[in-house]
Structures are given as structure tokens and as C-alpha cells.
């Protein structure tokens, strides 16, 4: 099965095209079936993945435009493997959670399957052009999902989402092309292969500008402060499934971009930019957490909390040691699962009540105990309670970042305080207290469909919180290799000092 990655990428797309001819009534079943097959494929990928091999596996290489070095080049390592699995899993669960009476179900399924293709494609492509193609293509189905199934101001939100991220990624494209040009100058041949770029030595000036170009694309996607404002709009208007995938997977593309492009290709600039990134990320962590506290709408709280958590991921990426970087990749997974689940949960209550305002609720714990329990578990994972998935990543990131800046770690660590402030405030306002709104009295608790979507996430939250090793180990191996590469690749002694290679690797 040497083409498993191609299968992973294109199976959903092909199935999506076929989906146009599927009967309307069976569209959801079809979607579940396809997503399940895709998910099983990704699980198979994991099973056949060699955890001890830190390099790229299952690589496929087909030249597309040979004279410009553009090729169809796929591969997966410990860093991308689990994000792919998470993407397929979240898509599957998201489709399961879709209501039967969703309007235009067929279109929804088809766009979700196309979205799945682009998501998987982004994380497995090793060619900058192919990467960019998937990157931009992912905007289209999401634009459609927000614009077609969203709330009252969906068009504004969708256009803002599209234009904002698109503007950033165009700058990134310029960076990618400049990178290829510089590679051509240096090596004499054209190549868009990321692995080739890893070997390229660039001057400090070139690295500086290239970093900024990449930064524009990735930072808007993450989204970093102050480029985050498209996110609350998008989340506020997107349908549940849109928010789930947006928060769980699409945001990770930004941080993944930093890990895959900025760090190894531009090690010196990455180290030089660390204070800058740190300041932005810390503002992101504290400021957006405070903004989240001020929200009246449950979904907005979670949207802003997403931004806040992405800040933690960002500082982990720039911790320049295996603990921080590995932790931040793990945190990408955990944030995907937890925020995905939280958005699903908000969607559940929104379906029942047609509102997301916290003031409309209160005392839900009494009327919907199972719902409250699942929400509580996800809340605890979100605030980083040990033995939930949220803690492992957050702990490692903060631990790793300590080496970069003590003050920064303390400020970032305040996330465990302010994170619990807004989350507990949300929980108290919606779930605790007497039931004051009579509309909340007869609310149904989670039904079978919702439980099918949510319980696997709860199980994963606990499983990876207690025993993260199967996931953490491949990540750790690849991260260590990445750091070694960075260190060898770095030109300035100060960079080499900043990158900490774990002792085992150093030997």
C-alpha cells in the first residue's frame, strides 16, 4: 500500500464527486460511510506507521512540472500523522452530529468531503506548491459552509474569513516563490520540495523577509493577535459543523505551517523573531482570554478561548526545544479535540433553544445532566486539568517555554488561571443556579446521535490524558529530528545556542 497517502487525500474528493448523484435522503448515511472509510484509512496509516522512524514515511513522488521542480510529493511524519487522523476523525464525528433536517444536506456532505481532502492534503504535502494549492482550496468549501448554512450575517463573516486569510496566504505565496527563486540561485535547479529547502543556507536578511512573508500567511490562519478578528465572526456565524472543523483543523494549518516551514527553513530568523512572537502570543493568551470572559454568547467564549489556546501553541512552537515543540504539537491535537467537542456541545444547545446567549440559560445541569457532564469534562480538558488531554500539551509547552523566558512562562501560565475564570464563569452562568427561564425546563438531554459524536471525544480526552505515549512518542521522535536539523542548518552561534537538543539526541 505505497499510495495510502494519495488514497487518503483523494478518496474523499472522489467520493464527494460521486456524492452529487446520491439520493438526498441517504446523503448523510453516505457521508458517514465515506468519512468512516477515510477515518479507517488514517487509522491504518497509523498502524503501518513506524513510530521509531523520525523521518518522512509513505512518501510519493510524481513530477508535475519538472523544469520548475514542482512535483506531487507527499509524505507523513510524526508531526503531521496525528493531525491527519484528527482531521478525519473530527470530520466523521461532525458528519454524525449533523441534524437529519439540515437543509441541502447533499451539498453539505459534498463540501465537507472536499474540505476533508484539502485538510488532509495540506498536512501531507511536501511540495510547497501542492501545499499552497490545498491551503487555498480549503478556503472554498469553508466559505460555502459558512455562507450557505450560517447565521444572519453569514455573508459578511464568510467574506471576511475568505479575504482575510486569502490576503495572508498570497503574501505567503510570494514568500514560497521567493524561496524557490533563492533555491534556484543557490543550487542551480528549481525545486519546490520542502525537504530540499531544509538544506538551503540563507543570509540573515533573506531569512528575515521570508519569515515575514510566511508569517503573514500562517499568523492570520492561526490566528495570532492582532489578526484574529475574523475568527469570532466566522465562529459566530458558522454552523456547528463549520465551527468544529474550523477550530479543530483549519486553525492548526497555521501552526503546522510554522513548524513545517518557518522553523526548519529559517532557523536563524525563527530564533530572532522569538521575542516578537512571544509578545504577540502572550498578548493573545491574556488579552483574548479576558475578552472571552466578557462575552455574552457561549460560542464566542469558546471562539475566543480558541485564540487564547492557540497562543499557548505558538509559544510552544517557538520554545526551540523538544519539550515545548512536542508539547505544542500535542496541544494542537488536544485543542482540536477539546474545542471541537465544545463547539459541538454549543451546537447541541443551540439546536434545542435557538440561542447561544448565556443569559438565556442557567441551571442546565439539572435539566440536562449528561450534557452538563460531557460539557464539564471538556471544560476541564480546556482548562488543562491533569489526566485530561489538555494538560499534557499545556504542561509541556509551558515547561519548554520556561527555557526561553521565565517571565513569559509565568504570563503564559496565567492561562490556567484566566482560562478557568472564563470557562467556569461560562459553566456557572449556563449550567449552575436555579432554572430561571421556563423554556429550559423540558429540554431533552443528549440523544443517541449526539452521544455517538461526543462520547468518542470524551474517551479520547481521558485516554490521551492518562496515556499519551502512543501519540507523544512519534511526535517526540520527529520533533527531535527537526531540532537537530535546525541546529545543523543554523548559521549563527546564537541560534545554535537557542536551540536545545535533548541529551539522547546529542549523544
Amino acid at each position, binding site marked *: 500500500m505505497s499510495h495510502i497517502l494519495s488514497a487518503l487525500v483523494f478518496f474523499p474528493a472522489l467520493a464527494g464527486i460521486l456524492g452529487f448523484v446520491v439520493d438526498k435522503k441517504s446523503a448523510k448515511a453516505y457521508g458517514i460511510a465515506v468519512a468512516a472509510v477515510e477515518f479507517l484509512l488514517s487509522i491504518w496509516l497509523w498502524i503501518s506507521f513506524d513510530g521509531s522512524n523520525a523521518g518522512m514515511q509513505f512518501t510519493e513522488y510524481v513530477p508535475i512540472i519538472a523544469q520548475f521542480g514542482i512535483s506531487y510529493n507527499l509524505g507523513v511524519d510524526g508531526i503531521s500523522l496525528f493531525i491527519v487522523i484528527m482531521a478525519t476523525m473530527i470530520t466523521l464525528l461532525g458528519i454524525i452530529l449533523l441534524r437529519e433536517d439540515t437543509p441541502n444536506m447533499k451539498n453539505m456532505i459534498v463540501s465537507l468531503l472536499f474540505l476533508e481532502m484539502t485538510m488532509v492534503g495540506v498536512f501531507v504535502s511536501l511540495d510547497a506548491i501542492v501545499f499552497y494549492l490545498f491551503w487555498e482550496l480549503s478556503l472554498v468549501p469553508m466559505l460555502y459552509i459558512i455562507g450557505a448554512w450560517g447565521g444572519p450575517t453569514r455573508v459578511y463573516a464568510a467574506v471576511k474569513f475568505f479575504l482575510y486569510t486569502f490576503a495572508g496566504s498570497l503574501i505567503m505565496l510570494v514568500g514560497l516563490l521567493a524561496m524557490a527563486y533563492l533555491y534556484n540561485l543557490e543550487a542551480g535547479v528549481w525545486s519546490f520540495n520542502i525537504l530540499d529547502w531544509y538544506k538551503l543556507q540563507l543570509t540573515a536578511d533573506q531569512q528575515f523577509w521570508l519569515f515575514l512573508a510566511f508569517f503573514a500567511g500562517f499568523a492570520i490562519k492561526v490566528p495570532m493577535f492582532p489578526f484574529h478578528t475574523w475568527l469570532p465572526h466566522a465562529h459566530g456565524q458558522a454552523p456547528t459543523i463549520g465551527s468544529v472543523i474550523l477550530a479543530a483543523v483549519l486553525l492548526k494549518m497555521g501552526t503546522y505551517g510554522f513548524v513545517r516551514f518557518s522553523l526548519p527553513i529559517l532557523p536563524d530568523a525563527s530564533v530572532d523573531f522569538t521575542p516578537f512572537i512571544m509578545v504577540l502570543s502572550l498578548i493573545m493568551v491574556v488579552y483574548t482570554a479576558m475578552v472571552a470572559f466578557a462575552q455574552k454568547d457561549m460560542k464566542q467564549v469558546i471562539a475566543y478561548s480558541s485564540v487564547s489556546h492557540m497562543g499557548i501553541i505558538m509559544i510552544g512552537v517557538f520554545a526551540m526545544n*523538544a*519539550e515545548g515543540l*512536542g508539547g505544542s504539537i500535542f496541544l494542537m491535537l488536544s485543542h482540536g479535540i477539546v474545542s471541537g467537542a465544545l463547539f459541538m456541545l454549543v451546537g447541541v444547545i443551540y439546536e434545542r433553544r435557538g440561542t447561544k446567549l448565556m443569559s438565556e440559560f442557567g441551571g442546565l*445541569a439539572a435539566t440536562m445532566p449528561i450534557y452538563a457532564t460531557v460539557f464539564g469534562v471538556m471544560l476541564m480538558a480546556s482548562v488543562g486539568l*491533569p489526566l485530561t488531554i489538555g494538560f499534557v500539551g499545556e*504542561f509541556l509547552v509551558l515547561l519548554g517555554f520556561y527555557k526561553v523566558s521565565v517571565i513569559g512562562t509565568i504570563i503564559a501560565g496565567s492561562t490556567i488561571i484566566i482560562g478557568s475564570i472564563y470557562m467556569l464563569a461560562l459553566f456557572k452562568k449556563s449550567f449552575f*443556579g436555579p432554572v430561571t427561564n421556563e423554556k429550559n425546563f423540558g429540554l431533552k*438531554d443528549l440523544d443517541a446521535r449526539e452521544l455517538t459524536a461526543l462520547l468518542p471525544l470524551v474517551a479520547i480526552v481521558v485516554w490521551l490524558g492518562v496515556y499519551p505515549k502512543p501519540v507523544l*512518542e512519534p511526535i517526540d521522535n520527529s*520533533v527531535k529530528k527537526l531540532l537537530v536539523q535546525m541546529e545543523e542548518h543554523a548559521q549563527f552561534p546564537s541560534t545554535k545556542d537557542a536551540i536545545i537538543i535533548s541529551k539522547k539526541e546529542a549523544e
Partner: protein
Amino acid sequence: MESLVYVALFAPFVGSMFAGLFFGNAPRNAITGWVASTLLFVSFLASVALAVHVVHHGSVHVTMMDWISAGDLSIPFGFLVDEVSVTMMVVVTLVSTVVHIYSTGYMDHDKSYNRFFSYLSAFVFSMLILVMSDNFAGLFIGWEGVGVCSWLLVGFWYHKADRPFEENPSISPSWAANEAFIMNRVADLGMLVGIFLIYWNIGSLQYDVVFAAMPNLADGILVAIAIALFIGAMGKSAQFPLHTWLTDAMEGPTPVSALIHAATMVTAGVFLVIRANPLFSLEAVSGVSLFIAALGTFVAFYAASMALIARDIKRIVALSTLSQLGYMFAAAGLGAYWIALFHLAAHAFFKALLFLGAGNVMHAMDDELDIFKMGGLKKAMMGSYIYMGIASVALAGLPIFAGFYSKDAIIETAFNEGTYIIWGILVITAGMTAFYSFRQVFFSFHGEKRYEALGFHPHDMYKYVLVAMAPLAILAISFGWFMDDFKAFITKNLPAYEMSHHTHHWAWLLGLIVVIIAVAGIVIAYKKYAGKGANAWKRDEEFEASFIYKLLENQYYVPKFYDEFLVKPYTIASEKFWAIDKAVVDGSVDLIAKAFYKSGDVSRGMQNGNLSSYLNWMGAGALLLVVAAALATAIG
């Protein structure tokens, strides 16, 4: 022995999961309570067996599996059962078992009976992880775990509505739960920083490795680690200024207060300091240790002063807990770790007993907490009266009872260390302790039956519950008798703190002073509050209007201060930030979009359909091009 460790650890977990099966709206199921209690008893037996094993064969160390390993970091789920942790285990499981059995009676009529046992057992599980872990990360798991369980249990009656601060200083159970959780998180951050410091300076989080490497570290780092860890301890053990959550946590059901907020969880901070004694006893961190002792002494006095006038029966007990935690920290800070641990254990017994007695009173009085509305309950509740009496005597530190030995040892330590100010304050506090604990006893059990006018019909707890409380009562009386055995046992692991010869010489006098002051406190309380008829207590309006009374009643205005200077500014800042986010950050993005729209709007005027004006525009453009060409020629 390994299996015993796992039995001790996981029995409560199984109980919690079992109770959890009857979650949700499932009707009350008496089995859950009994299964959970039985499993806890099993855990207790295993702990005792382990204790016996430790006495004879030394400590047991097991590693269950890897938890987190990334980079050079490797954290296993490892459990260490040595003298210190086995003491904690026995205390925790014993008190927990009693509280569980008590709860089957106390929570009898609560509709969330199953949920309660699920939470309570989960708490015990977390607490056991906390004390048994062999590394700081594992400790942190338990640390946060008990925090969550405390959150769940304090907010157990989440359906109660918020009330204004003036009416109920704790506002509501859910509010108190959140306060407790968030305030603990503040301290947890300190703890995390301590863990990071340890990891990056030593490279491991295992206790044995860390403590072995401690003496080789630079002084500054040691001090930093000590401060960071102590900040963590301050949160969990509710030391000033992170103390306000403890009294508010009394919103939880009384068994919870007895177990979590008196006997076990709040002592976790003391446990941490004891556990990290190789660090805190280093010369380099003596300043921090002294600070710990001073802070403990301050808190002991501070809390006792508030207890003097408190009217809420649970608050009085909570404040006395706070005060006793201060004693423990004083001992630990002065280097007498084993005495601190001893007081911790003794305190766990008598304070749990006291709380459960208070719970009985509440149960009898239909959840009335105001002692001004009680009085003369002795007849109706003889059993509870005896228990409360025993516990209060122990707390007051009268001879024979457990508190006498442990507290006296702490006061003696303060004298021995030459810290006479600490000694003096601790002695005065001992008198205050005796006064307020008996004030509460006399108020509720002696004097006029004030409740009759209010229409209460008190009745004592179920018999089996009272029987179940007996072990605590016995230990509250007798635990002190085993002081020397305990010392011999525990000092295998902890530094053997010995009184100097000089102090030893004066020990009888010191003890006498403490006892006299304590007895004086009791006598005053009796005079004031136990009288009947003409001697009956009357409210002293003048005193209640005085500044000191107001100060104490408002807890030195600390909650007010937090509300005014932390909560409100934070809320306002959050709102402001949100406004900024919408107006400035998002606004500037929209501004770009609007600029494009506007330019389109403006330039649309050119498209007026008049060819002639199009030509004019074209001409202007052509002119521009020509000028540009001319300039280009001129320049280049």
C-alpha cells in the same frame, strides 16, 4: 505489596466509577453509598497493611507505567509508600471512610445522592494520588484532581441562586466553588513554575533524584524553588492572602467540609512542605522557611480572631481549620516536620469529628447555621454533644486529648527556636482557640433554647452514623498518647527534631502556660454563653456596632478588597478589551475594506455615462503618463 498499593489507590476510584454509573437523573440508590464506603474501607485496610509493612520492611516504591515522556522529560505514574505517605494514606482513608458512612445518613434525602458518592470517592482517589506519587508531576495530578473534586463538591448544590454578599458572604455554592477553583489555580501556577525550575535545573521530577541533587544547586535557584512550591502550598492550604475561598467553601455539604476542607485536602500544602523537607531544611532557604513559619503564625492568629465573633457554625469550624493550618505551617517552617505531620493527623481526626458534629446540628436544625438561633440542644442531641465536646477539647488542647500533645509540641518548638514572638502569638492564639471553640459549643448546646421560638424540632442523627463517628472520637482523645511511637516511626524518613535541653527543662512550664490560657478561654466562654435564665446571653448591640466587630465580621475586608480591586477591575478591563477588540483591532481591518469600498464609491462618479467626460479623464491620464515619461527621461 505492590498489589496492596494498587488496591489502596484504586478502590476509591472503582467506588467513584460505580457511583458514576447511576449518574444523571437516576433515582437515589442506597447501594452506591454502601459500595463506595465499603471500597473505601478496603482502601483503609490496605493502607493499614501497608503501614505495617513500612514499619517492618521500609518503604515500597512501584512504577505503574509511563505517563509523559517528551524531550528529556520522563514522568512515570510512580507511587511511593514511605513513612510520610503511609501516614497520610491511613489518615485520609480513615477519615474518608467515616465521612462516607456519615454521608449515607446525612445525604439520605438528597436527590443527587449517587452523584455525591461519585464525587466524594473521586476526591479520595485524587488525594491518594497526591500523597502517594513519587514525583512532582504526579503530585500535581492529585493537586489539581482534589481541586476539581472540591469544585464539584462545593458546588454540589449548584441549583442555589446567587445572593448578595451582605446576605451570604459566600454568595452561592456555585460561586464559592468557582472562587475556590480559581484561587487555587493562582497558587497552582506557582507550583508549576516550581516544577519547571526543578526540571530545568535538575532534569528530573522524581523526588529521590531531586532531593539528592538539591544541595548542589545555587542558593538563588533553591530559594526560587522553595518560594514557588510554597505559593502552591499556600493556595491549597488557604494561607493568607489566598485564604478567602476556604470559608466560602463551607457552602458545600457538611461531610465535604469535614473531609476536604478540614481533614485532608487543605493539609496538602502542609504535606508538600513536609514532603519537600530536604529542600526547606537547607541553609540557603532558611529565610523562606522562617517566612513560612511567620505566615503560619499570622494566619493562626488572624483566623482565630475572626472565629471569635463568627455566628455561622460552619464558618467557625472553617476558621479554626485555617488557624490550625497556620500552626502546622509554623511547625514545618521551624523545621519540626514530624510535629507538623503529627498535628496534621491529630487535627484531621478531631476537626473531622467537629465538622461532622456540626453537620449533625445542621441536620437537626434544618440547615440553620446561625448559632444565635440555637442553644440548649444538649438534651435533644446527646451523642453529637459528646462528640463535639471531645473534639472541642482536643482542639482547645487540654491535656490527655490529642490536640494537647501536638499543639503543645508546636508551641514548644517556637520557644525552642528562640522565635519568641511566634511563640507568644501561638500561645495567645491557643487561648483564643479554646474560647471560640467552646463559645460555639456553649452557644449551640447550652443556655436557653432559642430555637424553640423559631419552631425547630431538633433530633439527633441516625444511630449507625453516630457509631461510625466513634473511631474519630477515640482517636481525637487518644492519638496523642502514641506521640513517641509516631516519632520513632516517622523520623526514619523525616528529620528528627529534638528540643534542646534548655527547652526540655522548661517544657512543663510552657505546657502549663498554654493549658492555663486555654482553660481561661473556656471559662470565659462558659461565663458568657452557657448561662440560663437571668444569666442568659444577650446580644451586645454596642459591641456589634464597634469597629473591631465590623472588621472581624467582614473578614478584615479582604473579600471586599478582592471584589473591588481584583474582580471588578478584571471584569471592567475585560469589557474594555472586548470593546477595543471590536472597535480598534477589528475596526482597523474593516477600515481597509471600507477604504476599498469608499474608493469605489468615489470613483464611480467618473462613470457618469458621458463619453466626453470619459475622454477628459483619459486625457488627464495621458497627460500623467507623458509627465511620467518626461520625468523618467529627465532622471534616467
